[in-house]
Structure formats: structure tokens, C-alpha cells
């Protein structure tokens, strides 16, 4: 599904953020990315989601080399991924329903079909009753669930979450983690960055630990 071969990433004027990273993620996996802040977790996620291109090495997504894709083809590659951010990146000038329908409009899906799918996605995260609410009136946990609904509404094959529970209370975090688990169980690949390697939901999951831009060890955390 996702394959990194000796990938190095550097931004103009920066040191190497990622150094010589090789990895592969299979369809249906649930993978954690850990490491201290600034280690390169977010950069790794951006490369996986085709938001950035590698400086050296190759990134293959569904057997397509990201470096060789045209700019005009990148948006279509990005639609395979559902993205969830620590700061939600919700649009606060529109209600929950309108937030969730945006990816469908981007995919050219409109009308009744779109509305049905939006309600299904809101239902999955338990926000069906709040479709008319403005995001600002929701709690932090609800906002993150709304962001998840928006990420899954276009049925992406991979969910990429960058510290989705970073700002949340323990009880909300548990909520969010179980939602990701549920999607993973129906076959969605999940890649999640977290600075908390001992997250109890990391049991029996593969962990990619990054230290100063290098992939240190691949381990499976067991309790």
C-alpha cells in the first residue's frame, strides 16, 4: 500500500528532517508513529499523504511514485487519504453538516447522495443530532469527532491522524481511539502519530519510532 525506500526529506534552509527512512505499510494495518516533538512524525505523515514529495528516495503509494506524479495528479492521490489533525482544521463559518460535506463536493458528489453519506458519517461518530450546530459550540472531543466524520465521509482507504488525542481529556481520547479501532476493523488502514508511546490502545500494534529523523526500531508494543 505505502512503501518508503531510503527517503530523505529536507525543507529549503533546514537540516534533514527525515534521514534515509525505509518502511512499508500494508493495507488494513493500524500503525503508530511515535517520537519526541520535532522528531519528524508530522513530516512522515505528510509524505505518506502525498502532501509533500521526498527530497531523496522514493515514496510509493498504491504503486505510484509520488516524485514522478504531475502536480495536477496530486489532488487525486490525496483523495485516497482521510486526514485528521490535532487542531481539527474545521471551518468555523459553517455548521457541522456543511463541514462534513466539503470532501464530497471536492469529489464531485452532490445532492441527496451526498446528504445521505454525510448523515451516515455523523452517525458513526455520534454527532447526528448536531448536524445543524456550529463547530464552535461543540466540545473539544466533539470537534475531533466531527473532524473524523469529515475524514471518513468520502470513504478513503487510509486514515492519517496527527496526534488526534493530543489536546483531549483521557475520557475523550478513549472515545476517539475506539472510533479509529472501529474503522480499522472494517478494513481501513490507520496511521496515527502520537508522542505517547505507551498509549494503551497501542497494544499489539506496530510502532514506527522516529528519533531525530531516523527510523529507530520497529516494534510491536505488548502490554
Amino acid at each position, binding site marked *: 500500500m505505502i512503501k518508503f525506500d531510503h527517503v530523505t526529506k529536507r525543507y529549503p534552509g533546514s537540516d534533514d528532517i527525515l534521514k534515509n527512512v525505509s518502511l512499508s505499510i500494508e493495507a488494513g494495518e493500524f500503525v503508530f508513529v511515535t517520537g519526541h516533538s520535532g522528531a519528524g512524525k508530522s513530516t512522515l505523515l*505528510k509524505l505518506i499523504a502525498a*502532501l509533500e514529495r521526498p527530497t531523496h528516495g522514493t515514496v510509493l503509494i498504491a504503486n505510484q511514485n509520488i516524485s514522478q506524479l504531475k502536480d*495536477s495528479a496530486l*489532488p*487525486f*492521490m*490525496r*483523495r485516497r*487519504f482521510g*486526514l485528521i489533525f490535532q487542531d481539527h*482544521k474545521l*471551518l*468555523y*463559518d459553517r455548521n457541522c453538516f456543511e463541514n462534513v460535506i*466539503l*470532501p464530497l*463536493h*471536492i*469529489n*464531485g458528489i*452532490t*445532492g441527496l447522495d451526498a446528504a445521505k453519506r454525510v448523515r451516515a458519517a455523523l452517525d458513526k461518530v455520534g454527532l447526528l443530532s448536531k448536524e445543524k450546530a456550529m463547530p464552535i459550540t461543540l466540545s473539544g472531543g466533539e470537534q475531533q469527532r466531527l473532524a473524523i466524520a469529515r475524514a471518513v465521509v*468520502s470513504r478513503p482507504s487510509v486514515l492519517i491522524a496527527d496526534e488526534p488525542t493530543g489536546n483531549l481529556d483521557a475520557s475523550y481520547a478513549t472515545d476517539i481511539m475506539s472510533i479509529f479501532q472501529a474503522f480499522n476493523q472494517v478494513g481501513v488502514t490507520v496511521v496515527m502519530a502520537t508522542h505517547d508511546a505507551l498509549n494503551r490502545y497501542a497494544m499489539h500494534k506496530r510502532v514506527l519510532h522516529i528519533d531525530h529523523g531516523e527510523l529507530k526500531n520497529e516494534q510491536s508494543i505488548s502490554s
Partner: protein
Amino acid sequence: MNTHLQAIKLVLARMLQKKLSTLMISLVIAVALCVPALFYIGVNHLTTFTSQLQSETEMSLFVKLDANNDQINQIKDALAANKAIKSVKFVSKDEAWQALKAKAETQDLDKNPLPDAFFIQANAAEPEALEKLKNDLAKLNNVEKVLLNTEWVKRLSAILALGKQIILLVAGLLAIALLVIISNTVRMQIITQKDEIIVSKLMGATNGFIRMPFLYAGMLYGLIGGLLAALMLTIMVWLFNQSIAQLAELYHSNFNLPIFDGSLFSKIILFAISIGWLGSYLAVTRAIAAIKTN
């Protein structure tokens, strides 16, 4: 197609939210369109007016009253031989006298005061060539006077041609101003919609998708501005006709400007829409390149 409808709906909703600023920008566009359009209407109407005048006789040659038939024939031959002359129409003093008597009260006159006359159409249309021909003809024997009837018409039409060029220049300058105004307005909108653009990019929106609502916004500004301009022009021309009517009556003329010029109005509106599209295209293309997803 649905995506287009979606974008238009979004833009209309946003415009309704900001009625005042939408009205303001549309008014600016309308005024900028009105100025050259008004000049155009005036100049265009005068041009048709003067071209009607030009088709009449260009030059009149009056023979001395005491000239006899031989001398008149000499002039006739000289005119026929002159290569600068296209056609000549001879009106004898008797014919002119009859025509005048038929038209006007002439009881007071017991003797024909009119001279024999030649009405001449020249080949050339340039004022210089006509001036030269006029001087040449005036030197012929027994010629009392040569009049260049349409001299002022020619001058007027030359001024009008210059006027048209000035209109083009003014219209061009105003088009640039409009382009700047519209692209700046759209740029302000882009800044307020920056989050939306970033999120859309992250979700795999193409540049075309991101651009679309802004392009429709620019085109709608153009459309509203163009319609307002058409309305303003109609009112202004109507007011002008009201005030000119009295003056025209004194001259037994029904000079007035056409109130509704559908072809001009549709051109103005199309022009405004194109400018709106172009202005927002420039703004949004620059913005898309500048806005980074992270």
C-alpha cells in the same frame, strides 16, 4: 455541472451576507463602465448624423450674374475636364427661380436675383484636396464664388473620429482600473477564506475546484455592475432627451438619443463579466500559489 451550481449557490449566499460591500463594488464597476459608454452613445449618434449630411453636395460654384451662355458653357467644359471632380449638376438661374417660387413667398421680388450654379461632388474627401479644388475653381473666368458646403461637417467628423479614439483610450484605462479593483476585492475574499482553501487543498481539491467560486464571484460582480450601468445609462439618456427636446423643437428637429440600445448594453455587460472573470482569475491564481498547505 452540479459542482458549478454548488459554487454559484455558495457565492450568492456569501454576497447576500455582505449586501453592502457587494453593492459598493458593483456600483464602482457600473460608474466606470458608464463614463466611456455615455461618450460612446453621444459620439456614435453624432457620427450617424454627420454622415447623413456628408452625402449631400460638397461644393457649390456660383456663376457671375452677367455671364452669358457661352461663358457658362466654358465653365461647364472646364469642370468636365477637371479630374478631381466626380460629378457636376448644373442648375440654371431660371430653374432655381422656379424652385424658389414654388417653395417660398417671393411676391416682393419682381426680378430673379439668383445666379446660375454648379453643384459639385469631388473625388477626394480630405479637407486639403477640397480646399485646393475650391481655389482652382475660384480662378476660372466668370466665377463669382465657390463654397465648400460641408467643410464644417468634415471637421466635425474628424473631431468625432478623434473622440472615438479617446473613448477607446479612456475605456482601456478604466478597464485596467476595474481589473485592479475586482482582483483586489477577490483577493480580500481569498484572505478571509484562507482556511477553507487550505483545508480543501489537504482534502485533494484541484486548483480548478478552489478557483471556481472566486471566478463566479468576479463574474457576478461584473454582471451586477453591467446591469447597473445599463440602468444608469438609460436614466441619463432619458434625462438628456427631456432637456434636448425643447431645444430641438426650435430647430424643427427631432434630435434625440436612442434610450434603449440592446446591442450596446449586452456588449457592456459581457465586457464587465469578462473583466470580472479575468480580475478574479489573476487574484486567485496568485493566491493558490502563495497559500501553502502547512
